[in-house]
């Protein structure tokens, strides 16, 4: 007779991140993004762990840079939408953010 067993695992843990009076910064979002892309076990081989952490730091810098670029680019889009709608004062305010 062949028997099989299926178990389920419920040791999951979610995190909740909140802000007050602002949105998340590129640095905060990049940190979360890097955690999604690369998870480094404390039990990993020390040499591999060090290499993975170095890679993660470089990845983080790249993510922050391009997130800032995305924010700036989106503000350009918003600026133009507002300008086209005749809201020049508001557009200037967005541009100066």
């Amino acid at each position, binding site marked *: 007779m062949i028997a099989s067993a*299926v*178990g*389920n*695992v*419920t040791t*999951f*843990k*979610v*995190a*909740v*991140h*909140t*802000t*007050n*009076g*602002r*949105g*998340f910064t590129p640095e905060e979002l990049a940190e*979360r993004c890097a*955690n*999604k892309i690369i*998870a480094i076990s404390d039990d990993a081989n020390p040499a591999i762990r060090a290499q993975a952490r170095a890679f993660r730091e470089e990845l983080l810098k790249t993510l922050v840079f391009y997130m800032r670029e995305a924010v700036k680019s989106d503000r350009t889009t918003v600026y133009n939408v507002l300008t086209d709608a005749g809201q020049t004062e508001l557009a200037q305010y967005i541009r100066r953010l």
Partner: protein
Amino acid sequence: MAFTGNFMCTSFKKELLYGAHDFDSSSGDTFKIALYTSSATLTAATTAYSATNEVSGTNYVAGGGALTPVDPTSSGTTALLDFVDETWSTATITARGALIYNTTPNTTSIALTNPAVIVLDFGGDKTSTAGDFTVVFPTADSSNAIIRIA
């Protein structure tokens, strides 16, 4: 204390065996996440979404937000599932926990309305004030993913 930990709902496990839940990212069911106050009583015995003690606040709509599932995958002998992080923007919310539930289950073999999937315990009240409120799901691997069958 109303929340006593994270739970994969017992009814959900049974419903999996009835084929009631489809987590395909493009053609699967619609899953939502609802937030609750510390007065809510959600446990493994929770079977369905309820509006009782659900949070209310600026830019939070009753019933919660729709989740985007990532296609189920496997790692070694463990099958696993992830969701894209859920954010309520420019929101004023205080929540102690959450319930993930299915709004469009397959009811061919079992009668269901908004069946519960997972209870999430935030460990304490979490508050955003005119800001972002984000539920960050764990790393999608065989040790941490939100739903795993080992």
